[in-house]
């Protein structure tokens, strides 16, 4: 069927050959136009400030500087995907370090550098809010409180056998897409702009550019060929550079390019939300949870961006794989003076799930039982205990099977015994083992986003172009769509090209996000193909019927197979697909179609905290084993086994790549990746020299991925979305560290924040190994570990605030 190899579980990536030969084109690879301008911006030097005066005269005089723009040059300055609370260019106040104030256009980067130095800004420094506690104390919040509740929490706590409470502080993470935020804008006639953007959200970019520049959306075409990685970071945050370059192009009439350097990108764009979660959990002697009360604080940064939706997903995912009979979870977004935190693969889900997996580990440590048993006893059931805390029924629940099969295939019990034995004997190292799960809801929680359109055009020679709103950031959505379209027509994959995403071809598209790009856009493309195919079948039926072979025109019996078309009653009479296309054209039958797909049966009501927001769930389990150096806190990941239910793969090879990559990103977030800030709120770890994402040696020797082969009937080709869910399996590495610490913590619950860096681990080891003696000097130090508070029965894991550390 295809000339390309399929033996590795599907078609190779659409762009693989151009990637490996360096011929794939990214924004900054596009040829320079002769009068092109480079664009950059001058931003706030302080995290929170009041602009007193701004003098651009010296900067304007720098040779090569063509234009300087401020908020006054914008038609509108306010925007935002959920709340319109963000300004593109600060006018009176600045809310984070690097917040843009002046857009600079020049003929060279050196001129921009000079101009930046000569901009005279008089700014009064105001007290910034640099952590969640300070924001809470100041009452600084974005948006309202969101709540999900079920059952009678108070009653459950009042009769519970055991209660634990604690606080979990987790840091953010930089997306570290390799290609920084980039945009290139070509001006056209009549205020029309062509915007080449490295974005996951072309329509969002189109909308914001048009809105802020006072254009109609139909004057702005946004094109996305590909991104050098996105991971959520190019959903909303790609709009800022796009507007700036578009402003320059519109006003000067010259092409304008803005490509951020890595340091600026890391310092000035939003990240994964740090969270600070307080929880209280009631459970029985077997570890079965009776009630959960949790209060989540997301560090939103200076503006809302997508924080509302991120918080929402944290609240809907705090159950993870576990049935919670009585629940009260409340969440708020703290407003701090950092760049607005934004979408990042998992989108709040990981911050919710880490909390419950942390709780599972603590219950087990408290009861001194195998954490797996606690998880298993709490796992959602098939026939009962199978509705989520927001009321959605779990259909086709594969979680129990995933738990049991992985425990068996990974030899969990034997290895747990070996870990216990090791920890009894080793004077130098400590081991931990943990098996965690993920249940990730698929669909945007905002219902209207769950739609997509696709345009399929067949040309006279039988070759096919398909355009959708999905953007390619490496995940392989184009390869999936190519396969869907080629398979619908039963033609060679080479006959189909998936075009660059363009708002000219596909209007009002949803961002490539929420793992849903193939689900939505693939479904739309399939609908378009089927509509064309229906017309082609009619033409073919007429064609075969007129061959005097004794069969009437019967479109439903026309088959497409291996590039040929035939009536199943006379299969030896064949017409090639290409010839049929010619017939259709000459018969004046349309060979193009636009498909539109809207996800059925989903809804959610935040005023009640109830609904069925997800079409289905993607599930999985993972077990990780770690070794810790008792003297340095150094962490080594020894072995990982993953088992996932991702339905029938459209392309298994690509899906395995998504699983491995996502797992690693989750692991990085929870272990070595640490955003360290100055006391003034400046990011100090703003390049790979100081911000460490996992490297090749962090891949353990044993890294195994297995898949359940199970059709997901409600989605295109029986598949399931896979982009985000495996990121949450990286949590098993963090819980394995917590598990290791439980061997030292004695009667205490092992406390661990995230990231579990060498320093964090060593701090905990010191505390447990040396007790009071290990508590090092200085009370404001990161090393001041809080004491235990006896709540009921035995000790609990309440810790003092550690916020200052998370943002230090």
């Amino acid at each position, binding site marked *: 069927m295809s000339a390309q190899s399929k033996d590795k579980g599907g078609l*190779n990536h659409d762009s693989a050959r151009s990637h490996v030969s360096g011929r794939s084109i990214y924004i900054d690879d596009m040829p320079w136009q002769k009068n092109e301008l480079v664009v950059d911006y001058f931003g706030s030097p302080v995290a929170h400030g009041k602009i007193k005066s701004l003098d651009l005269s010296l900067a304007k005089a720098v040779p090569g500087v063509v234009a300087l723009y401020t908020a006054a040059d914008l038609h509108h300055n306010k925007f935002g995907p959920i709340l319109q609370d963000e300004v593109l260019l600060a006018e009176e106040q600045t809310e984070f370090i690097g917040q843009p104030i002046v857009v600079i256009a020049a003929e060279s980067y050196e001129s921009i550098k000079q101009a930046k130095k000569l901009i005279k800004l008089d700014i009064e420094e105001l007290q910034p809010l640099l952590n969640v506690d300070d924001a809470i104390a100041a009452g600084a919040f974005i948006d309202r409180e969101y709540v999900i509740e079920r059952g009678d929490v108070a009653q459950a706590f009042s009769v519970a056998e055991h209660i634990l409470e604690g606080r979990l502080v987790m840091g953010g993470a930089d997306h570290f897409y*390799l290609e920084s935020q980039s945009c290139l804008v070509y001006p056209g006639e009549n205020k029309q702009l062509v915007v080449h953007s490295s974005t996951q959200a072309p329509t969002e970019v189109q909308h914001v550019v048009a809105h802020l520049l006072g254009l109609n959306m139909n004057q702005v075409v946004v094109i996305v060929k590909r991104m050098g990685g996105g991971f959520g970071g190019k959903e909303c945050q790609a709009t800022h550079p796009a507007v700036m370059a578009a402003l320059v192009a519109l006003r000067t009439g010259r092409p304008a390019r803005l490509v951020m350097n890595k340091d600026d990108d890391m310092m000035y764009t939003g990240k994964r939300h740090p969270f600070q979660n307080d929880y209280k959990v009631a459970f029985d002697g077997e570890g079965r949870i009776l009630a959960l009360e949790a209060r989540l604080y997301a560090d939103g940064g200076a503006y809302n961006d997508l924080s509302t939706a991120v918080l929402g997903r944290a609240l809907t995912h705090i159950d993870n794989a576990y049935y919670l009979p009585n629940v009260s979870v409340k969440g708020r977004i703290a407003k701090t003076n950092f760049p607005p935190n934004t979408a990042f693969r998992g989108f709040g889900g990981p911050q919710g799930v880490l909390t419950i997996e942390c709780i599972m580990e603590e219950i087990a440590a408290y009861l001194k039982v195998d954490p797996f048993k606690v998880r298993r006893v709490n796992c959602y059931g098939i026939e009962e205990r199978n509705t989520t805390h927001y009321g959605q029924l779990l259909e086709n629940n594969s979680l129990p099977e995933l738990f049991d099969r992985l425990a068996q295939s990974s030899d969990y019990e034997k290895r747990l015994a070996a870990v216990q034995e090791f920890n009894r004997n080793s004077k130098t190292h400590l081991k931990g083992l943990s098996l965690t799960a993920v249940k990730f809801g698929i669909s945007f929680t905002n219902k209207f986003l769950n739609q997509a359109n696709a345009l399929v055009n067949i040309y006279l020679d039988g070759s096919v172009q398909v355009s959708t709103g999905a953007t390619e950031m490496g995940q392989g959505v184009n390869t999936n769509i190519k396969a869907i379209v080629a398979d619908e027509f039963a033609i060679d994959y080479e006959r189909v090209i998936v075009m660059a995403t363009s708002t000219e071809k596909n209007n009002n598209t949803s961002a490539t996000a929420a793992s849903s790009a193939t689900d939505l856009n693939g479904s739309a493309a399939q609908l378009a193909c089927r509509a064309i195919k229906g017309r082609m079948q009619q033409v073919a039926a007429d064609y075969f019927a007129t061959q005097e072979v004794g069969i009437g025109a019967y479109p439903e019996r026309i088959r497409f197979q291996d590039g040929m078309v035939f009536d199943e009653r006379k299969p030896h009479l064949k017409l090639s697909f290409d010839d049929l296309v010619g017939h259709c054209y000459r018969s004046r039958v349309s060979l193009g179609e636009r498909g539109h797909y809207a996800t059925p049966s989903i809804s959610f009501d935040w005023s009640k905290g109830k609904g069925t927001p997800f079409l289905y769930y993607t599930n999985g389990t993972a077990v990780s084993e770690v070794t810790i150096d008792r003297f340095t806190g150094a962490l080594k990941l020894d072995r990982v086994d993953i088992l996932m239910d991702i339905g029938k793969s459209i392309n298994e090879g690509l899906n395995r790549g998504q699983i491995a990559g996502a797992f690693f990103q989750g692991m990085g977030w929870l272990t070595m990746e640490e955003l360290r800030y100055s006391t003034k709120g400046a990011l100090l770890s703003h390049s790979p020299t100081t911000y460490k994402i996992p490297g*090749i040696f962090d891949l353990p020797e044993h890294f195994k991925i297995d898949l359940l082969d199970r059709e997901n009937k409600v989605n295109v080709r029986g598949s399931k979305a896979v982009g985000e869910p495996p990121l949450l399996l990286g949590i098993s590495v963090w819980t394995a560290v917590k598990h290791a610490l439980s061997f030292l913590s004695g009667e205490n619950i092992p406390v661990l924040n995230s990231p579990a860096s060498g320093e964090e681990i060593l701090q905990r080891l010191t505390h447990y190994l040396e007790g009071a003696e290990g508590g090092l000097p200085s009370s404001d130090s990161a090393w001041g570990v809080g004491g235990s508070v006896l709540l009921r029965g035995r000790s609990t894991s309440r810790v003092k605030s550690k916020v200052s550390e998370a943002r230090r």
Partner: protein
Amino acid sequence: MSRANLVFYINGKKHEVGGQAAFQPLTDYLRYGQSLCGTKVVCAEGDCGACTVLVGRARTVGAPGFSYVPVNGCIQYLYQLDGCHILTVEGVTGCQSDDAAACRLNPAQEAMVVENGSQCGFCTPGFIMSLSALAYCDYYKDYIGKDSLAEDSLANQTDSLKSALTGNLCRCTGYEAIVQAAVSARYEQFQALSQVYDEQAILKDLEPLLSVDVSVQWQDPGQSGPVKSGPAKSEPDQAATTPLSQRQVFIPSSVASLCSYLAENPDAVLVSGGTDVSVNMNKREFKPLKLVSTARLGLDQLKQLDKDELEKSGLVKLGLGKLGSGILKVGASVSLAQLEDYMKEACSEFYKILWVFGSPQIRHAGTLAGNIANGSPIADSVPFLMLAQASIEATSAQGTRLVPMSEFYLGYKKLALKPGEFISAVYIPMPVAQEKIKLYKVSRREHLDISSFTAAFALQIESGLIKQIRVVMGGMAATVMRLGEVENFLIGKPFKLETFKQAGKLAASSLAPLTDVRGSREYRLKLAENIFSKLYHEIEEESLVKK
């Protein structure tokens, strides 16, 4: 005799560059000057590998030809590359025809396609270059079995292959597919470079040019400089009156040239591998007026001194001549990768440190002399050198002298070099058999990371007592330092955990490290304390194994 233009080849094509164009990173020249956009730039500081290229210099031993090494193109400035043949991803793609469609992929590229080793693609050209290095670099000649990797040796080779790829970051794949590609690539099927490029003709063309010094002035009209097809990324035209326009770079072809140049220009900045200097240029607006590239000095001696050489060296006078198993001379041009290779047999502890030093790209560009001269308190090579009581050979027009490592650092990044002096070699007394060497590096990530803390120990134990011990720590003060007080405390004490615990407490109480992005003061103090217990346990364990 001298030249005013740089001459180098890229993918078989000759380039001559002079004037200000010589003062730009290779990646800018490739991407914005030559439209060779396959080479990507992400971090511009040598920490991600997206810009990896192969740089070939004429072999000094063995068959005439080029010896290629993988380096980070973003921190290789053009003036470092005079006389080189540079290969980019466009140049290893199994064809050199201008007809892109006619190209077939090389075996590493093919493997990366088949194994799905590439997702977003931005890191991919860098990985392709690191994989191609396995086929094209002398350094990797015996590195892996080239006839498809045999199953039984796979585990061993996987580590070697990972090591070759340590300098390349990928955010999409989790590396699993890339390792698969590295394992399955048919390295023996790479087309020999000599079949692709007329290397002999290139060598012949370059040979006469390499015997002369090069002196490039910013104001020189650049011959065949980069065709600026777009706004210059790094260096635009400067008004002739600014001091920057006085910038110059000198590339001596001999030590004598360098000595006389430095005698007149003692303020010149020496660039060896450039792995630190170029980062400062890219990121910290470091723009020295006078630059000297030592790339063509050929101070590439890496050998144990024999008796005569030892006599001549002056080391005997320093009291180092008699030491145990010989003295190793490391010329200033010796790369960290060459040293790593040597230490594999000669000193496994130092090898372990060199193995996790930066990345292959950094180790192939960077030199031991450069690491010493940079003077960082967290330099990875310095604790060992301090421990081994190495000596620095400083050379100037006045001749050479030796400076013991212990006297080389006067303060934070302050060296005991006199004006006009440069490091020409390092002499390392190799550890003796009865001495136990232990080196430690703690960093956020084991590989490709800068240390938060380093420690080095040399000790002799006799009948249960600590007979001799030297202790060195880095990351705890403005320089790497010996801990004399702790040494004195330990000497003569019984080899027991309690002894080392006390030593750890003593060390911690005598140090005052800073809090920075790599770790807090408390963290470093705890490491300084704990490392003694770690040392004790490791030595105890090893002696148990030996028994």
